[in-house]
Every structure is written in C-alpha cells, then in structure tokens.
C-alpha cells in the first residue's frame, strides 16, 4: 500500500515562507519564474508524477530491463510514460531557451526532480543523465557540438550518459584506460570498456549521446591525463537526424539490488568515432563542473525516496490496529489502537519527518543560491552563492542519501513484516535508496571532499558563508524569549561544530589520516547543525502563525517537529564531537593483516 501525494504545501513553505523564491524572478533570464508560476508548474508536475510515473514504479521493479543481443528494452509502460514526460516539455525545464529549453530556475527543477524520484526513481535516471550530458556540452562543447546535441537533449528525443567507471576503477579515475586515438580529421577513435553506465542502452530515445572519459596517446599519468569525448550511438546525420551506427555497443546489463528499471550497462567502445569536448587532458575538470550538479541531483533522489517512505509509513501507522496505547485504549470502539499511538512508532515517524523537512529546507536554500550563483548581476554576490553551494554539495549528496536510506528502513520497521513483503512497496524503497549512497562519489568520498577540499579552500572562505548566517541568526534571536528553546540547542551544536572544525584543521595539518578518520562523522555533525538551523528558522515563522488562522495546524506541526529535532536528534552532535576528538589512532592502530 504505497501512496504518494506531491508535498505541495511543503514546497510553498520552504520556497515562499522560509526562503524567498520570489527573488529569483528579479534575476536576468528568470523573469518568468514568479512564485505563482512556480507553484502552478509544481502542481502540474505533481499530477504527472502521481498519475503516470508512480503506477509504473513497482511493475518496473518487478519486470526490470531486458537485454538481448545488444538491445535493451525498458519495462512495460516506460516508453509511453517517457513520451508523456518528453511531450509535456519536462526534459527541457532548466535548459536554455536558445536550445529550445524553458529557461526555468534550478530551484524549480530540484523539486520537480524530487517528485520524479519519489514516484519512480528508475524512470528519473533517464532524463536525469540526459540533463547531465546537456550541462557538460553546454559548458564545454564547441558551438557546432552545441548545435548538434543540445536541442535534441533538451527536447528529449536523444538521451545522454556519463561514461566514467571502468572495471578496475570507480573512485580513482586516474586509472582510466579507455583510449582515444586522433583519426586525423579532427575526430578521435575511442576504444575501451566502461561498466555500470546508467541509461547506456535503452529503447526510450532515437539516439544516445555518451560523454566518455578517455586518454589521448600523449596523456600524462593519472587524472591530469584524462580528456572528455562525446560519442553518439548513431553519428549525427547532415539533416540533424541520425546517421551511421557508431562503434559502441552494450555488452550486457547488471542484475542488481534496486533501480531495476534503470538499465545499468557494460559499454564496449570499439574504435567508436568521437569528438573532443573542451581542452585535451582537461576532462576531469570538465566532468567535475557537471558532477557537482549531478551530486546535488543524487541528494534530491534521497530526499524523494524518503518522502515516499514517510507517506507510506504514516498512512500505515494510522490504519494498522495493533496493541493498545500504554495509558489505556485510545480508540475503545476498535478492536485495537492504530500503531501511531505507540511511542516507538511515533519516534520513528518523527525521525523521518524531522530529517526530511530539514533536508527539503536545505535543498531550497542550496537551489536558490545555485541560481543566484549563475544569474546574479553582482559578481560578489555570485561568488558568495557559489561558495555556499560548493560547501553544501557534499552534505546534500551524502546526508540526503543517508536520510533517504534511513527513512526507507524506518518505513519497513514501521510496517513490521508487511514492510518486508514485496507487495507493499516499502522494501523496494530500501533497495532503490541504497545506490544513492554509492554513485556520483560514495558518501565516504563526499566526506573527504568536505574535509579535504571545501574546508581549507580559500583559507576557510567557503565555511564562513555558512558560519556567518548561522551566528548572525543566533545573535538576532537572542532577545526573543519564545525562540530560546530552539536557539539554545542550535547555538550549542554550532559551538561544537566550530570546535570539531578547529580540531580537524589543526590535527589534519600534521597528519592527513586525522582528517580522513574524522570526515564521515564531521559531515554528519555538519548536516545535523545545518538541519537545526533550518528548524530554528522554521520555528521563527511558525511561532507567529500557529495561534490562529486557517493554517494554524500546519505551523503547530512544524513547531512540534522542530522540538522533536532539537530534543531527540540534535544531541547526537555531542557524541560525534567526542568521536572526532578521539582522533585517528583507534582507527589506524590495527595492522591490515590483523583484520
């Protein structure tokens, strides 16, 4: 019994009450994106997700993709759903009008993406990767490449992939072996094997555009010798359509734990014709500009799955009659009470709710700043926004996907044995969520990115983009007695985060293992503190509106959830600080042979 309704009220809250999405319409290029348009679009996207994508989620999981002789078929109904999605213009949402896009803000795309992932994450992989390819080409492609590929990727008639991983290397892309040999006519011949390529082959689009990392013959060792190439399945024809079949074929598809309706392909490149994208040997940098966006996208996948798990668990907890409330029957007329009366079930539901809503608030903040970083006329403001987004990206990726997996797991727990049974759809969410913690850089790698790259960058400038607004907020609210119950715990956690940061900066300087051993715990601590900041800001708004008015119930629920977060989840920052302060020794002491 999975159920899903687009959380439109929540979107309105984070976008228009907690943050000012209206400010986006003041940015050049975004004048159309007024709050009422954004709301209308979210509503219509929600309808499509609820009615078209959601019904295919479980059937797609059961059926999976089919592979035969290099041809991959998606599960029943996916072609029709993709056509509806494409014809509705949804693939072009955040694309440039110059290439046939709608030119709408990332902020809107974020939440449309959340709904897509809530209702059918496997489906969302196909347009999601296409958009990644669109971004890579729009940032690094030549004019001719843009003209050839961007309109097709925007309107969704062609799709895209990211071909990074090889059998012997996933995280450590410096080991890539795929070769690119100049063909003499400005083109290249690409040869090698890529594995785990999402949407590498399928039956949804006329053509598939692979973006491939490979090495030129004169390439230096390691990541400094990697270049980016565009390698289409069918070479573009002179008329803008498709021409000859290129030398890239799908060797097989993986049988895997989740996202079964998303084809994960082995791709064999055999002297396939490709073009260089960007400068020679600068492929990693090109890929990274796009990977940051993709990492945020994976975070949103985690959030989307968490929401579906929560909605399903909430509905189940209200209906499942089992046991009696500890204080005596809450519904004496029923054979038993609904399980939502039990403190342990409430603890689980509230953990989901409190982490999801804080994550969504963080998503809104990050997304709006991402738009500002690209469109604001003032370069200083753009830089500020870019810094914050860079800082928050590993947190959004790792924390949201941890929240997604934890929420799906709690969903199963709340449903008891029925959560473990396929029919009810909850176990699928656990399986689907698991991959989000792995791809686009494992969550361990995200933590290293935060600690090793983002913290020291520009002498801590990125960090200040977060620390300053938080300390400013704490100071501003100091005089407000009603806010004390939210601001005090926030201030305490914030103080500990600063302590942990100082510890890592000092110890890590002497011994990099110190930073490495602290990274995952530090990321979690950061995420909890950022969530507390979101809850305190939420409480400020909710306090003013919870007394009277049509919507008072909504704000009272916000306050209760904020209190739960502060009392029951935030205190973990104390133990995390203790763990971090214990240093790398307990982790590094055991000899490798002794494991």
């Amino acid at each position, binding site marked *: 019994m999975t159920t899903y309704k687009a959380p439109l009220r929540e979107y309105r809250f984070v976008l228009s009450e907690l943050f000012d999405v209206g400010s986006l319409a003041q940015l050049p290029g975004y004048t*159309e994106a007024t709050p009422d348009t954004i709301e209308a679009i979210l509503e219509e996207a929600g309808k499509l997700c609820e009615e078209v994508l959601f019904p295919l989620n479980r059937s797609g999981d059961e059926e999976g993709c089919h592979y035969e002789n290099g041809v991959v078929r998606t599960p029943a109904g996916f072609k029709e759903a993709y056509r509806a999605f494409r014809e509705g*213009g949804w693939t072009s949402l955040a694309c440039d009008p110059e290439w046939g896009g709608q030119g709408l803000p990332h902020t809107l795309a974020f939440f449309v993406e959340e709904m897509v992932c809530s209702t059918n994450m496997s489906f969302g992989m196909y347009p999601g990767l296409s958009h990644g390819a669109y971004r890579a080409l729009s940032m690094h492609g030549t004019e001719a490449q843009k003209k050839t590929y961007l309109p097709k990727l925007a309107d969704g008639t062609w799709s895209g992939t990211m071909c990074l991983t090889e059998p012997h290397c996933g995280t450590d892309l410096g080991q890539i072996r795929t070769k690119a040999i100049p063909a003499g006519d400005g083109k290249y011949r690409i040869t090698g094997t890529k594995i785990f390529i999402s949407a590498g082959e399928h039956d949804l689009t006329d053509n598939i555009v692979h973006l491939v990392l490979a090495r030129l013959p004169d390439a230096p060792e390691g990541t400094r010798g990697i270049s980016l190439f565009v390698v289409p399945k069918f070479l573009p024809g002179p008329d803008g359509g498709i021409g000859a079949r290129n030398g890239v074929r799908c060797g097989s598809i993986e049988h895997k734990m989740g996202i079964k309706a998303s084809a994960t392909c082995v791709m064999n490149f055999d002297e396939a014709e490709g073009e260089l994208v960007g400068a020679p040997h600068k492929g990693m940098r090109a890929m990274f500009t796009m990977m940051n966006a993709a990492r945020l996208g994976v975070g949103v996948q985690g959030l989307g799955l968490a929401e579906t798990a929560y909605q399903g668990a909430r509905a189940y907890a209200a209906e499942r009659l089992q046991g009696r409330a500890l204080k005596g029957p809450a519904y004496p007329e029923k054979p038993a009470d609904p399980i939502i009366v039990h403190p342990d079930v409430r603890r689980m539901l509230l953990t989901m709710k409190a982490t999801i809503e804080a994550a969504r608030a963080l998503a809104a903040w990050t997304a709006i700043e991402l738009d500002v970083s690209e469109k604001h006329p003032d370069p200083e403001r753009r830089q500020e926004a870019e810094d914050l987004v860079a800082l928050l990206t590993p947190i959004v990726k790792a924390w949201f996907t941890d929240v997604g997996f934890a929420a799906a797991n709690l969903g199963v727990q709340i449903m008891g044995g029925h959560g473990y049974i396929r029919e009810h759809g909850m176990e699928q969410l656990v399986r689907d969520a698991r991959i989000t913690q792995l791809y686009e850089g494992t969550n361990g790698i995200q933590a290293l990115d935060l600690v090793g790259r983002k913290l020291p960058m520009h002498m801590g400038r990125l960090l200040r983009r977060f620390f300053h607004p938080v300390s400013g907020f704490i100071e501003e609210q100091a005089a407000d007695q009603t806010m004390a119950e939210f601001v005090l715990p926030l201030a305490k956690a914030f103080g500990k985060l600063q302590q942990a940061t100082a510890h890592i900066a000092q110890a890590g300087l002497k011994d990099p293992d110190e930073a490495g051993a602290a990274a995952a715990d530090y990321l979690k601590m950061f995420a909890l503190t950022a969530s507390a900041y979101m809850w305190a800001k939420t409480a400020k708004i909710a306090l003013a509106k919870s007394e009277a008015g049509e*919507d008072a119930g909504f704000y009272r629920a916000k306050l209760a959830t904020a209190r739960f977060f502060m009392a029951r989840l935030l205190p973990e920052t104390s133990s995390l600080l203790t763990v971090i302060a214990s240093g790398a020794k307990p982790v590094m002491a055991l000899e490798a042979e002794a494991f």
Partner: protein
Amino acid sequence: MKLLVAVKRVVDFNVKVRVKADKSGVETANVKMSMNPFDEIAVEEAVRMKEAGVASEIVAVSLGVAQCQETIRTALAMGADRGILVQTDAELQPLAVAKLLKAVIEKEQPKLVILGKQAIDDDCNQTGQMLAALLGWAQGTFASKVKVEGEQLLVTREVDGGLETVRLKLPAVVTTDLRLNEPRYASLPNIMKAKKKPIDTLTPEALGVDVTPRLVTLKVEEPPKRQAGKKVGSVQELLDKLRNEARVI
C-alpha cells in the same frame, strides 16, 4: 466557431472531505482545490475541437472567489485562449450560475457551450439544463461523443439503457460525461503561455444578475458508518434475519 467552457473550482477529488464542526458545510479551509474533473473533460473536448480546426476560439469561464483564477489558468494551460472570471464571494447555486453564464454568453456569443454534467462537490447536475432552458438553446447532456456536422451537432448520450444519439441545432449546450475523453496533462510550455493569456473579471452586479440563494442548507452530516456484518450459521437463520430483522422479504 467560438466555444465557451465553464470551469468550477472544487475540493480536489483526492481530498477526504470533512464536515465542518457546526455542520454548515464541508471544510474547505487549507484544502487542496482543483478544477472539477467533468469540467476538465469539457476543456479537453473544446481543445480537441480547436486542434481539429472546428473551433476558432475557446473562452473559459469560472464563477466565484478570486482564487477561481487558478482554475481558469489551468484551463488556459490546457489550451483555452482566454478567461472570464465572474468574481463574487457569495454562495452560488445552480440557478444563479446558469443566469450568470447566460449573461456572459449574451456578451460573448459563442456557438457552443460545454460544461461538466455535474460538479463533484454538490453533485447537482442542474446547471447545464437550466442554462439551455434560459437561453432557449438545444441541449445534449451526459455526452460521451460529440461531433460537429455543419450547423448541427451529433451528441451521443449515456442514458440508463445504453447510448442515445441526438442531433442538435447550433447554438447548443453540451454537458460532459466521463467517457467523452481523457483530459491531457498541461505541458510545461503551455503552463508558461497560460500566464500571458488574458483573464477579464466581471461581477454579478455588472452583469445585472441577482444571485441570492433560493435554497437553504439545513445541515450537512457525514454518511453513517457502516455497521459490521454478521455471520449466519444456516440458510434458515439467514431467511429469519432477512424477514424479521432487516424486514426485506
């Protein structure tokens, strides 16, 4: 040919409606509102007629509070060309709606008016019929198929016994049944375009229509809860219960 469609803002069909504490009606505060599903079918039919070259312009009309604009925008996003909102906070009953629509129709002079057969909030199923009578136009209600043939309209109606096809002279009023079509999802470009399409606002006073309610709602209650069933041991017991307890045989 110019078409006019009427669209009503109602509580979304997914919402579990609750009766207000004072039993004066159902709770609409903080509840998701959407276009009446039968009206979506009306808009879809009009848009298909336009796509087929039969209709030249589609005007979407809604009556009620300011937020009915959103419902009109939905119609515009589906493909209607412009909107008219007759704005009032007063309670509107079917007769008042029919009179207001008549006044708008006299200004707009459409050849065909399409409405939902009923609205899912009050289930009245009266407005279309009243409107046709007030205008003195032909009517084809519960339509499951509509075809324009020159100055005439073939309407297949869903009636109790099956399907009935009637031939109407234009201008006419048609009300839609569920099987007429499956409404489309508004596309993203069309949602954007809808923002730029004009919506005129009128008032009942400006149209010279008295909308005072003629009916008084005494009380709104939830339907009684279904009682748990009983297991019977034998046919004899069943007959006995049917005869003496349920008194149905």
